């Protein structure tokens, strides 16, 4: 009887951790998706993705705390600001080096990392600030498993973002043009597509998705200029695991990483502190066993 009880309790515990893992995994998934969007368009990682998200989260913070605007107005407004900001960054900073070798682009995005991190610190300072959450942290009990509204909200919002992005690419003309421009820039030009603007739009979308991710992370932790750095690392892990050029892979990778970390952190003693190491272990294993990731293409040479 006693052992039965123990078993029930631990099953519930596992479910609880899985839900928690899906919630944080959704965060990794959104930022990983932002990375993949840009990778597909220009075959480089945007190391500044997290810092851009932090910057926009600070903008949301100002709108909420200093201007006292309602949360559900600030949320979409911040996304719009992020999209426009992303487009502007591409047009002003990336465009001049668009055709440069990958290493140049990587260095430029590292520069952007420093710029946005510094700007956040300069404008809002390095004090940690609480960021309001639209969802209560009180739990709801479903079949004896306690899940916080916060976690459910995270899962809901990230799912909505991912579905919207998917619909945009699969169902809209601009989405199709962006896919075509990313895969076949020369052929797309011959069809009249302004490939440069499609790339800028890609940066805009990525920044928008990143902004959502930032606004979801901040209430869980606290807001400071380094808000997204650990999230970005797990997003890298997620993107590599899923396949760096696969949006579906980014999502699945994010969720898997979230759940794995939650379970490992809870059930393997002393691993909580080694989560980051565990994350990089995943990268190394993936690169050795299946370099293309779960859903990515193996490297294909264009003939």
């Amino acid at each position, binding site marked *: 009887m006693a052992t039965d009880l123990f078993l029930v309790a631990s099953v519930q515990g596992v479910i609880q951790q899985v839900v928690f893992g899906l919630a944080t995994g959704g965060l990794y998934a959104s930022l990983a998706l932002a990375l993949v969007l840009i990778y597909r368009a220009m075959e480089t990682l945007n190391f500044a993705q997290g810092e851009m998200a932090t910057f926009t989260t600070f903008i949301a913070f100002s709108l909420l705390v200093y201007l006292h605007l309602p949360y559900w107005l600030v949320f979409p407004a911040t996304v719009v600001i992020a999209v426009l900001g992303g487009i502007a960054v591409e047009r002003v900073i990336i465009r001049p080096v668009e055709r440069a070798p990958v290493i140049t682009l990587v260095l430029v995005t590292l520069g952007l990392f420093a710029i946005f991190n510094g700007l956040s610190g300069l404008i809002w300072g390095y004090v940690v600030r609480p960021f309001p959450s639209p969802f209560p942290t009180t739990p709801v009990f479903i079949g004896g498993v306690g899940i916080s509204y916060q976690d459910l909200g995270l899962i809901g919002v990230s799912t909505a973002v991912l579905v919207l992005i998917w619909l945009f690419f699969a169902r809209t003309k601009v989405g199709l043009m962006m896919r*075509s421009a990313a895969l076949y820039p020369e052929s797309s030009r011959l069809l009249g597509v302004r490939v440069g603007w499609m790339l800028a739009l890609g940066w805009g979308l990525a920044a928008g998705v990143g902004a959502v991710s930032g606004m979801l992370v901040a209430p869980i932790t606290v807001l400071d200029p380094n808000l997204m750095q650990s999230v970005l690392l797990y997003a890298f892990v997620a993107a590599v695991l899923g396949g760096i050029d696969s949006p579906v892979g980014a999502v699945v990778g994010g969720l898997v990483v979230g759940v794995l970390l939650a379970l490992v952190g809870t059930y393997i003693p002393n691993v909580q502190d080694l989560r980051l190491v565990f994350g990089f272990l995943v990268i190394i294993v993936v690169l050795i066993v299946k370099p293309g990731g779960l859903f990515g293409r193996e490297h294909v040479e264009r003939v």
Partner: protein
Amino acid sequence: MALLELENVVASYGAIEVLHGISLAVDQGSVVAMLGANGAGKTTTLRAISGRVKVYGVIRFDGRVISGLAAEDVARRGIAHVPEGRGTLAQLTVLENLQMGACLRRDGAGVKKDLDRVYEYFPWMPGRLSQPAALLSGGEQQMLAIARALMMRPRLLLLDEPSLGLAPTVLRSIFQIIGKINEEEGVTILLVEQNAKTALRVADRAYVLEVGEIAVSGSGADLAQNESVRRSYLGY
């Protein structure tokens, strides 16, 4: 009236000059063939027209200078270029390839009508719309490339070696369709070919290129019958 005019067009890749002053005219509603050996500059001439290589000299389309425009702006003026290698959007589906052809058009009803028209030319297409274009055979990809270009509703169609790598029967049907497109859609066509015999059959006029210069020009029929031209330049 000439829809397209090239005046003394010079083009180079880096330090190597490939076109040494090409002048030619393509009349509204005609089919013009550009013939010549490998490396004569045929493909480069097409790339010069569609804004993919930097040129000196003047290119006029419909009376307006287009030399110096970016490729996407040339396309927006109504010039569809089916490039070497067919420009297949391989990972996209057949339907998406066709939609990409029409991606700048805002006349939804017209696009739908043109889709139906394209399916009349290529009856195999409607059944395979959801397949990735990469799964099509070479001939089918060539047809898809032409269909995609038609979806742009162009005034001028540039075709780069539509016969390349095709079986003789496929080649015949493609050239039949090229002729039909010219007659029924009123699309002016500039065609680059190595297969001179087939090209001269549909061409109203032809230019023979030799190392970056125009060696001979004349009506398609004249060139086909001229013994010495045939032997020295066309190789049959």
